């Protein structure tokens, strides 16, 4: 039976103009990898400039609890007040957890 280690997966949906800034901030917060898909969407805040620039990006980032905490912090400080963003967190299981967690999770 494969033993899965619990780890946090944060999903962030953001205007695509933010891509390079957001990825930079994720890296600074300690994320060691991410997966991006192109998305579009609708939210309570309504229309945005991204309609012209190519929609939203949907970023999934698997991180330790400590890094997750830092990511939420930076989202609250720099993104939520200004930008069209949705973000949610879920607990998932992985093998080789060390690949995703730069600083050990204890």
């Amino acid at each position, binding site marked *: 039976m494969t033993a899965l280690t619990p780890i946090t997966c944060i999903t962030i949906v953001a*205007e695509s*103009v*933010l891509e*390079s*800034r957001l990825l930079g901030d994720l890296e600074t917060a300690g994320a060691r990898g991410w997966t991006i898909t*192109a998305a579009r969407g609708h939210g309570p805040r309504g*229309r*945005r*400039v991204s*309609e*012209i*620039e*190519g*929609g939203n990006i949907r970023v999934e980032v698997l991180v330790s609890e400590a890094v997750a905490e830092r990511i939420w912090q930076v989202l609250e*400080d*720099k993104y939520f*007040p*200004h*930008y069209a963003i949705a973000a949610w967190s879920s607990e998932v299981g992985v093998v080789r957890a060390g690949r995703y967690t730069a600083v050990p999770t204890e």
Partner: protein
Amino acid sequence: MNSDVITGSLLSVPVLAFILGVTAARLKADLRLPDAVYQATAMYLLLAIGLKGGVALRDADPAEVASPIVLSIVLGLLIPVAAFFALRVMTRLNSVDRGAMAAHYGSTSLVTFTAALVFLDTLGVAYEGYVVTLLAIIEVPGILVGLLLAGKAASGAKTSEVLREVVTGRSVLLLAGGVVIGVLSGPIGFERVEPFFGSLFTGVLTLFLLEMGVLTGRRLGDLRTAGWGVVLFAIVFPVAAGAVGVASALAIGMTQGGSMVLGVLCASASYIAAPAAVRLALPSANPGITLTTSLGITFPFNLIIGIPLYWWMAQELAGVFT
């Protein structure tokens, strides 16, 4: 103004495709190009314009090019300032929104420029090949001045970071790269790619304007919320800036065709480079207002009325400066 010219412009296939796009958007029908194709089309237009400009620039006398370049920089710095203060008089927008608007109207619109060249080509009017260089030059300073006028952009990206993004952005690189390639390869090199970058140009522009029409049509619904002052600005300011551009270009000795093109550069508002830059640097600015005016009002106004109007100005004012 010769009515044939207006009809010829209004009833050209690209302009009619734009109107088709607006109509489709109002009917809630989806005529948008797939995003990948839209991006590729924009890259094609930028590279093609750059190439043709470069080939033309190759034969230009450097001395002749200097004063139009200086003039473009000056206009690129002054127009956003004028816009910022005109908006203070005409509207109740706060200074961040006014800075955002200044960045849009200080920069310029590739597609309006392109449509102006197609308009002149159709009439068989000559213009300086290096106007493309002016396009690349005028695109950047307006955005920066606008951001600076907006002042402290709390928690947005730093201006230097934004400057880097604009200067190494697709538009500037493809335009400038195209110009350099055109200069180096010259007319003989260009001949081999002419069937692609030359003959197809108006057709590809037609597809692109269909898409712009859809985007414009979607914005039209937001006009009500924009306020009358803003709507008025979006028509009056381009005409004034266009007149200044035409007149000053004639004054430094550019051709009628080239002067009309500089007028179009001044009159048109950015809806690609500026929105992205402003979004990053001024997150608290309301993109509803800036995009609705630049894309929803000024763009169709210039495309349909402005282009023949600035050409008429160029012809009328030409007498004054000679």
